[in-house]
């Protein structure tokens, strides 16, 4: 478990002080898979660097398994880092080491004897589905396989936290699914606190049960995904079900977000009945997120007043707004 309290990180630049993280409070619960999302420059990378103690917070605390990283001296900090396994965007494997020797690196650094290192790296490569590839060099592995080696390496020191920094941003969609599968699988099997930093909403949809939304160095939303999407005022729901690019035609349109299995599927026909008019569907999609069904549709009001459509949709329990 990781708890960030009043975490603040400033950087001094020539143009003055830049606040990368501002009063950030987050709890990453044990056994959960938390997605950290936000646009670039929102503080995601700084947060990651604070969680691995590569960056010291300006103020506030990062407590991993009850130990405040900010309060440790260099030696104890190095030991504490071993409790957080890290997976990188580009795997960051050593090119001149075999897969097995890459996985063994953290053990080597920790002073584990050679025989135990060999056994452990074999076991870990098996766990991520790479048994038999122990002697392959990274250049001989595919992107997905490299990332699996990266995951195995992150697990070498028996960490309690698996921190993944944009683990799939450099991968194609099929490989992305494969790597995300491995992450959730090992997370569950080993009972890890998994943190996945990602700019991709699809990653959030597929593997996370909790989410932290960052913007301008602040936490703007956080909580369980299934609760957040139901929550009125959450901008996350709309982002999780992105609209396909609508065809030609001009607004105003009405965007309607509906939560719940029945409600999400039937919203257009119910709305149409209530207004006693045909509503044209401009764009739309439906998703299941953290076990919750969700639909988002963009409707053309036709002869009706867009605001009447909004009112009707809200009366049906959906969230609705006019978009130009």
């Amino acid at each position: 478990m990781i708890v960030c309290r009043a975490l603040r990180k400033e950087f001094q630049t020539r143009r003055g002080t830049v606040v990368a993280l501002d009063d950030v409070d987050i709890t990453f619960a044990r056994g959960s898979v938390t997605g950290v999302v936000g646009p670039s420059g929102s503080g995601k990378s700084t947060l990651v660097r604070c969680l691995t103690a590569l960056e010291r917070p300006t103020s506030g605390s990062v407590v991993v398994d009850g130990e405040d990283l900010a309060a440790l001296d260099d030696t104890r900090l190095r030991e504490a880092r071993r409790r957080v396994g890290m997976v990188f965007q580009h795997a960051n494997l050593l090119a001149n080491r075999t897969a097995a020797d890459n996985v063994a690196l953290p053990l080597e650094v920790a002073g584990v004897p050679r025989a135990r290192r060999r056994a452990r790296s074999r076991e870990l490569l098996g766990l991520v589905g790479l048994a038999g590839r122990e002697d392959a060099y990274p250049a001989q592995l595919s992107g997905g396989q490299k990332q699996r080696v990266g995951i195995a390496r992150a697990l070498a020191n028996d960490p309690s936290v698996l921190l993944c920094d944009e683990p799939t941003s450099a991968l194609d969609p099929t490989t992305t699914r494969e790597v995300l599968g491995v992450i959730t699988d090992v997370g569950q099997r080993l009972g890890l606190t998994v943190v996945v930093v990602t700019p991709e909403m699809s990653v959030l949809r597929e593997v996370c049960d909790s989410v932290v939304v960052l913007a301008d160095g602040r936490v703007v939303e956080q909580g369980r995904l299934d609760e957040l999407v139901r929550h009125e005022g959450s901008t996350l729901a709309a982002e999780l079900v992105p609209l396909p690019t609508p065809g030609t035609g001009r607004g105003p349109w009405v965007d309607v977000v509906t939560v719940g299995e029945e409600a999400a599927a039937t919203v257009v026909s119910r709305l149409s009945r209530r207004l006693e008019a045909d509503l044209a569907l401009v764009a739309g999609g439906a998703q299941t997120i953290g076990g919750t069904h969700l639909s988002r549709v963009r409707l053309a009001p036709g002869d009706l007043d867009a605001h009447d459509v909004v009112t009707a949709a809200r009366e049906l329990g959906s969230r609705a707004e006019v978009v130009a």
Partner: protein
Amino acid sequence: MNELLESLTRPVVTEGLTEATLQTLWMVGLSGLVSVLLGLPLGVLLHASSPGGLRPMPRTNRVVGAVVNVTRSLPFIILMVALIPVTRLVTGTSVGSTAAAVPLAIGAIPFFARLVEAALRNVDPGTVEAAEVIGSTRRQVVTKVLLPEATPGLVAATTTTLITLVAYSAMAGAVGGGGLGFLAISYGYRRFDTVVMVLTVIVLVVMVQLLQALGDHLARRLDHR
């Protein structure tokens, strides 16, 4: 034809050339070894102390960098003469191949150090970060990540340094170091002995080609990228 055969069997060719070749190899080998042994840590220091390095030390970096640059900006022939007192101090004499190795090494150390620095800079910073995240000490980052990952580059740097030393050693030969440079000057230049001149050139070309081929082969074998 007979004349050529005759000139090829003279002692200056049969014995002199062999001896000169051995002297050159000794000069290059000895100074090369010292350059690598001292230039490698110096290169690591330059890399580690640079801004954004493992342990940024701006002042140390600037001072070491300046010393390296001054040494490198002196033409070797001048450096060699200027270093005669140092050479005497180290070897007790300023003539002979072993004495020549002193200025050769001092000239090559900063050269090699800069090449090492460049090779280390080419190591993916992501791998360094990966090593830091697993709790590596700085020493471990150097010995387990930086140097092994830079190995092909370090081999290439060593090759380049040795070849440069072959060139420098010819200059050292001109002022008392012996070797192929001395042979070329005293026979080829002063006595217009074209045969010796040509043979010297051939030996030097073969030597450099072999060094380069060996270095390239080794670098390729060690490179798993």
